[in-house]
């Protein structure tokens, strides 16, 4: 099938970008990224610079791939990362607009690649359990209710791709932050420092310049792991209660 791609090209973080149109011949078995590979091979053959886009595992788990395809982060299918999207969902003659994530906290580096290091800094602020390598108690010492463990897993399934931020009209990172806060708060091991964690992660999130959640739920709709906004409510709860209950003055 013949496709027209309108792709955002931008030389560097400070340069101005613009859309360029390309024609590409794809086949329905290709994945979306393989279709871009084909385009890049053609560009290289013409001695032009290929389109920069980030990708790695190509099986929907590493969270490296991004792209906003016709207005939707990771494309049209629910619960699917860009790398798992296949061309059979398109038809001959389609026009596909491919843009980078747009958010002040995710500046464009080049073409379709953006800088998502803000997520790392949020994690460093408190997205962990403060346990050093050593000899903790036996793995079975703390029983955890099956459903609770499963709910923690659902939150922990986040791949840190940033689609939530890209999808949110407010560019809010609440789904990402709440997934980590929920994952750890739902487990007894993580309860100990839940208060401090919620405070620290939210503070860092605010400093990074993400927007504020107005419960639009576009994040959940576009999340390749379908992480639920109930986690956001849990974060609100954790944050609120830690603000009120905490004995620490500041």
């Amino acid at each position, binding site marked *: 099938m013949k496709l027209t791609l309108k792709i955002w090209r931008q030389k560097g973080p400070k340069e101005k970008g613009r859309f360029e149109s390309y024609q590409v011949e794809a086949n329905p078995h290709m994945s979306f990224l393989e279709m871009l590979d084909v385009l890049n091979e053609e560009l290289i053959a013409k001695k032009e610079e*290929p389109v920069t886009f980030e990708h790695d595992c*190509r099986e929907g788990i*590493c969270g490296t791939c991004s792209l906003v395809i016709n207005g939707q982060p990771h494309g049209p299918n629910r619960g699917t990362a860009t790398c798992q999207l296949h061309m059979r969902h398109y038809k001959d003659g389609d026009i596909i607009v491919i843009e980078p994530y747009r958010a002040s906290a995710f500046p464009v580096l080049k073409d379709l690649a953006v800088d998502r290091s803000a997520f790392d800094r949020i994690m460093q602020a408190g997205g962990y359990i*403060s346990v050093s390598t050593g000899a*903790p108690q*036996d793995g079975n010492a703390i029983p*955890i209710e099956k459903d609770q463990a499963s709910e923690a897993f659902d939150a*922990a399934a986040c791949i840190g791709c940033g689609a939530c931020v890209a999808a949110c009209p407010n560019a809010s990172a609440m789904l990402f932050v709440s997934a980590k806060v929920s*994952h750890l708060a739902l487990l007894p091991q993580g309860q100990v420092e839940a208060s401090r964690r919620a405070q620290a992660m939210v503070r860092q999130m605010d400093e990074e310049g993400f927007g504020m959640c107005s419960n639009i739920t576009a994040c959940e709709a576009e999340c390749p792991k379908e992480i639920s906004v109930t986690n956001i409510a849990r974060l609100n709860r954790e944050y609120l209660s830690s603000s009120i209950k905490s004995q620490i003055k500041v």
Partner: protein
Amino acid sequence: MSFDSNIPPGPLAEKWTRYRGTMNLVAPNNKRRIEIIVVGTGLAGASAAASLGELGYNVKCFTFHDSPRRAHSIAAQGGINAAKNYANDGDSVYRLFYDTIKGGDYRSREANVHRLAEVSRNIIDQAVAQGVPFARDYGGLLDNRSFGGVQVSRTFYARGQTGQQLLLGAYQALSRQISLGSVEMYNRHEMLDLVLVDGKARGIIVRNLLTGELERHAAHCVVLATGGYGNVFYLSTNAMNCNVTAAWRATRRGAYMANPCFTQIHPTCIPQSGDYQSKLTLMSESLRNDGRVWVPKKQEDAKAIREGRKTGNDIPEEDRDYYLERRYPAFGNLVPRDVASRAAKVACDEGLGVAPTGLAVFLDFDDAIMRYGKSKAHSMGLHNPSDAKVRELGEKVVEEKYGNLFEMYEKITGENPYQLPMKIYPAVHYTMGGLWVDYNLETNIPGLFSIGECNFSDHGANRLGASALMQGLADGYFVLPYTIGQFLSNEIRTPKFDPNAQEFLDTEKDTRERLEKMMNVKGGQSVESFHRRLGKIMWDYCGMSRNAEGLKKARTMIQELREEFYKDVFVPGSMNDYNPELEKAHRVADFFELGELMVLDALDRNESCGGHFREEYQTEEGEALRDDEDYTYVSAWEYKGWDEEPVLHKEELVFENVELKTRSYK
């Protein structure tokens, strides 16, 4: 350069405990003065960097990814082994040790493997304490499943995303150390060379992937945790950016590359659909518990399926060859990975493949669906249910067990595996070979350590399922943080190294020249096209089965391709910019050299063992024929450059606790 495995004395089960109790320590005040470079942030790298940071060392950690959380450990599905014996089914440290040695076809070190089995238990405790959400049963305790043809249930798992959850655990521990300042993190920095000062590893040259700038980093020692080199085959289940460069550059500086030809080919991957494809996707091994593998008996049927005139469902029962069940009646569809993969290749080589490319076999769940359906109907009290009803009930049971895998298959292939048998084909998955290390995980270059898939140490010629995660974390959390002290305790008086010293400047110059050389070719072919061609040579001649003639031919072909590369490659863009094509070019250039060494290693090993199958060395029934008399050694290769033959150093493997037997699955 030393070439001693440094295995401590004493009885096998006590070696590690005794050694740990007597090894040299570095005092806390001295740790603060010592710098360590860790390259790679997968399970091994992240866990090592975090643990070393916790101990008080100054750690600099590097990854070429945009975040430490992206490393390919994240894609491991199945689980992680640990000799906890929670299931009360007779598991023990010794049994895990024995299974690993046997599974590796007796080509790994007893002492290393036993230590791995010992610390496996600590890993689970550590991961739980970090908040890894392992699967639990209704009593709230950790759940186990059996895996990869072992007879006990010792695999801990977190749905089909165990690797992800364990990596996030290590990443979180690492993030904590970064926030505390004990680890300095360098994202988007790729190691392109190793710096030696007076024969010891003292630093690395990295390229800032965003600016293209080369940077020199110095430390008292260097730890490589840079994963495997499966991408030398171009098509593999590895992530697109997995590469051998860090390990290969160390080899170029004198480190020995051990057993490079030992490659694991995983039998259940989604087949390639076309030439544009650059990556293969793994389907969990657990599918073989219920799926039956078959191909048509007649070539014309296979041809009709390939051309789309027939489907698997059109082939009557008597025209199907369930070849695994036929050849291995005792284990049937559950034979180990290497055996299952080879059998699929044999079937496809006979022209019985069922995908348009000719490279696929069926994995059929029809029997399982009907069997489960009947049993379900029975338990519901339905007598004489219709076939349709049985099928409907059976599909539900299969969906509960494998729903997410079936969905993934359908997402990729667009075929409904409940209605049509799945098509699968083997794919490169893991490399057992890697940098040679001693018991301390130190290479033959003093001060250079290698952990995780990057080293060769624990899996011999074939890795068991759910053991890769175990090894990566064992090395990073519980082995290296101790053994690195053996080296560093002698370095407490060594002042910090100056990255502007001549050795660093020289190595940086070398690196720059290598990059310039590739940029300046300005030929007519893309890096990708060279990589694809190299991969095909490797797959055809050094893949699932190998023979001397093919290997010799492959070596010449690789050399020619390498020469062509340096004459005709085209790398667009500039060196001083974010340039993924240049990154690829450097990686592919290193793959050429590694590929040649793999071929040479395969040629040297005149036996068949584990993932290494030499056609000349097989039994009359076509099974692997090991030669324990002549090949019970680790091949440690010293690589000196294109013009010189690599030198083979042999580390004889001594088996004091295990009797060498032929693996049989008949």
